[in-house]
């Protein structure tokens, strides 16, 4: 909890500034747009936080998004499976890559960076290989409706995003197995000596992260009615950035979903704001870089322990 204040203050400052700079920023429509714009990265960042809490890292997340989306599409359109089955198969593919990550780190004892680098590379290649780079389009209406519908004025993507955050936050805070992640990431030796199933937890968390990447993949596919083999490739750094800006330590054991949500909004609001203000495309990265550093610098004190 102690990590939040810095980024939260940063977020509020950005928020207030943009409200003055753009008349469109504070419209309900735009705020809802931001929510659905961050949904894919947001869903993945939940998985990334869990892994980072364990002291791990997952580089494969973007490739998994693409691979599971392409697998689903290929099974539906090319293999002719019923869509519902293909849909589930897409999720299973994501979870499976996550499971492989988990096995490689927990049993193979590979550094997570290497293990997920390997699966990242392999999944990206496979996603392209399925159709030789072609996107696949033409999905059932109900599937496309997932991202085109609102519940009580909230876009479904946003509802899914918030629900996933809430469930994961509940798990981390109130369930022993979620609590255990902090113990394992904070001090693996203690966790082992306390009889916590360290390897099982790792496998579980990597699998969950794979599944969440697949969910993000399906959201993206639904939104565009198109499965693309290179989707998600650019998201990796964003996903990790969101978690770290949200105050989590890459050395494990500290971080919270509330912080991650703040990090997510910082990135989302910044990108949205710069579009609204028509900031020159070349300068956008400069602004983002500066704002990230500034937002987190205010958090100096609490991050001190982790440097």
């Amino acid at each position, binding site marked *: 909890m102690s990590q939040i204040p810095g980024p939260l203050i940063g977020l509020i400052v950005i928020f207030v500034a943009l409200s003055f700079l*753009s008349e469109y920023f504070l419209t309900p429509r*735009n705020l809802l747009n931001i929510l659905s714009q961050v949904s894919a990265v947001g869903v993945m960042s939940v998985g990334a936080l869990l892994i980072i809490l364990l002291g791990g890292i997952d580089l494969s997340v973007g490739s998994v998004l693409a691979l599971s989306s392409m697998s689903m599409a290929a099974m539906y359109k090319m293999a002719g499976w019923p869509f519902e089955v293909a849909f589930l198969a897409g999720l299973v593919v994501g979870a499976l890559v996550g499971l492989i990550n988990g096995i490689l780190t927990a049993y193979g004892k590979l550094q997570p960076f290497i293990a997920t680098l390997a699966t990242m590379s392999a999944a990206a290649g496979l996603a392209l290989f399925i159709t030789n780079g072609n996107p696949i389009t033409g999905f059932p209406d109900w599937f496309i409706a997932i991202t085109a519908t609102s519940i009580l004025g909230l876009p479904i993507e946003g509802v899914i995003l918030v629900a996933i955050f809430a469930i994961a936050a509940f798990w981390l805070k109130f369930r022993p197995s979620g609590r255990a992640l902090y113990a394992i990431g904070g001090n693996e030796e203690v966790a082992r000596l306390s009889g916590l199933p360290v390897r099982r937890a790792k496998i579980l968390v990597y699998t969950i992260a794979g599944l969440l990447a697949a969910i993000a993949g399906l959201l993206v596919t639904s939104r565009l009615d198109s499965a*693309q083999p290179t989707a998600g490739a650019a998201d990796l750094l964003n996903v990790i950035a969101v978690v770290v800006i949200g105050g989590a330590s890459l050395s494990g054991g500290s971080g919270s979903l509330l912080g991650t949500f703040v990090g997510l909004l910082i990135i989302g609001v910044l990108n949205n704001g710069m*579009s609204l203000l*028509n900031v020159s495309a070349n300068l956008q990265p400069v602004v983002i870089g500066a704002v990230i550093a500034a937002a987190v610098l205010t958090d100096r004190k609490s991050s001190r322990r982790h440097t």
Partner: protein
Amino acid sequence: ALLFTGCSPTVVPTANVADGSDNGKTIGIAVADQKSLFYVAAVDGMEQAADEAGYKLVTLSANNNSGQQVNQVQDLITQQVDVIIFIAQDATSAAAGVKLANDAGIPIIAVDQKPESGNGKLATYIATDSVAAAEKLCTWMFDQIGGAGDIAILQGPLGSTAELQRSEGCANALANYPDVKVVGQESAGWDETKAFTAAQNILTANPNLKGIFGESDAMALGAAKAAQQEGRSGLVFVGIDGFPTMFTAVADGLTQATMAQQPYLMGQMSVQDAVKIAEGNGSDIPELQYQDTVLVTSENVAENDPAKFYGPDFK
């Protein structure tokens, strides 16, 4: 379509041509990537033509990394291929690859990108004039919105040659339309999802937007879908590429136009020229071979077969 069936009177059994056992000749291909459909289609065309001619192909993809691409030209030279077909990642850095091939005495054909510097020697250069294509497309779009109003541009990855040339072409068109105003310009990196997000924001900030120029079809599609979701109608969405999906979208009225390139054809041509060179009769190949782009709109979309542009593999 002319060149589709045009050449090679000798019929070679296709089963064993792949390993080139017939004449032992090999064409090396250094291509920028194998993710973009443009490059994939070009290589498809090359494979088709090579199959027909009984040549072996070695295809190396540089994953959009110019440095890596020079390495790969080196690797092709190491394998002593007979001709190199070079689809450079980037026009300014292409000279290095050409120079390597020249030094090794291997003829090199440039496709799509031509080296901007150096005094390397190309056997031939086959390309679309991207600047002209973008200019033509933007002009068409400006006419559609009545020659005045707000538009937005979704750019490719900043600094990539295709992005620079397409931006330049549209800027040329803009010079003729003083009343057209660019109110939003953003890079969406050829990516449909990012284009969707960017367009959503641009639409929010610009209630009077009249159209969006996507520097690729994928981005035009993403933008059109964003507008559709926001319930904004009457806008003009145009893209460059001519992908089959874009053909469908134009036919359905989701988007309004695409500038179709002919990578499959260009691929075929490049291999056919390479074969001529390898067989010692390449002297009559012209230095420069520009391929037309075709403006596909709702009016002519029915007459154009997408397979003509991107090959039979694309549906």
